[in-house]
């Protein structure tokens, strides 16, 4: 388990270094995904399989997809085809693919071996997490749902394009503080 832990940590740290030093946002996002997958493998070696699953599904799945959407939207327009052709070069995806392949080999080796057992590690199963989450931490779950609702409403309000709906709904305002309006 130690070798797996250190290998996953090294991959995560190397991918993070590459992510914060890239100049192209898409390259950085690929390395960021590899970094999150590496941290997920670290979670698995620490006996926290539920956190590892959540890391892959929510972080590498949902949050990074939001980043990719925004990067694509900001690059809309000029020379988009040339950029996409450049992104398909092997030099762009070889590094993240190599690191992801190393992580894949590692997780296959981990799953083929016995369950994670370590001298200083006490594995925490998903059953314990769920029982605690909906037991003493129920109020925190409700507060998190309120936070997510506030994030949803805020993102919708910020992302709305006011230039397209001047059909009287905004005419009642004093004007000037509606987001999205050009200066």
């Amino acid at each position: 388990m130690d070798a797996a832990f250190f290998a996953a940590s090294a991959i995560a740290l190397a991918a993070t270094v590459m992510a914060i030093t890239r100049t192209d946002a898409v390259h950085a996002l690929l390395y960021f995904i590899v970094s999150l997958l590496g941290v997920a493998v670290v979670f698995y070696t620490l006996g926290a399989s539920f956190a590892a699953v959540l890391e892959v599904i929510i972080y590498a799945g949902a949050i990074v997809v939001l980043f990719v959407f925004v990067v694509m939207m900001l690059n809309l327009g000029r020379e988009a085809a040339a950029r996409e052709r450049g992104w398909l070069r092997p030099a762009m995806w070889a590094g993240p693919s190599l690191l992801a392949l190393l992580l894949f080999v590692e997780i296959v080796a981990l799953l083929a071996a016995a369950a994670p057992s370590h001298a200083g590690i006490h594995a925490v199963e998903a059953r314990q997490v769920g029982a605690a989450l909906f037991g003493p931490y129920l109020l925190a779950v409700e507060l998190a749902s309120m936070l997510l609702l506030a994030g949803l409403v805020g993102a919708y309000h910020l992302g709305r394009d006011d230039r397209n709906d001047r059909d009287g709904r905004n005419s009642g305002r004093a004007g000037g503080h509606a987001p999205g309006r050009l200066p």
Partner: protein
Amino acid sequence: MSGPAPEWGLAVAAALLALGLAGVLVRRNVIFILMSVEIMLNAGGLAAVAAGARWGQADGQILFVLVLALAAAEVSVGLGLILLLHRRFGTVDADRFSEMRG
């Protein structure tokens, strides 16, 4: 089968946090700044999970779940702000947003 893995987990979390902080301080593209903030939040979650693994309690993973919800809300609002700034200023350079004209 020996070795202080939870303590090393804390060390990895500290290194990831330092890398995220360096990214926030060095980069001037707001997308990279937001991504570095995500790296720092992820490092905080890693520290919580490592502590939970050390003590065998579920509280570390619960803190990680809450950090995950916080990161999701934060990134949605942050990316909405980035879209708004790009629509209003035509750039994502943080140095260009230094003056706020009412």
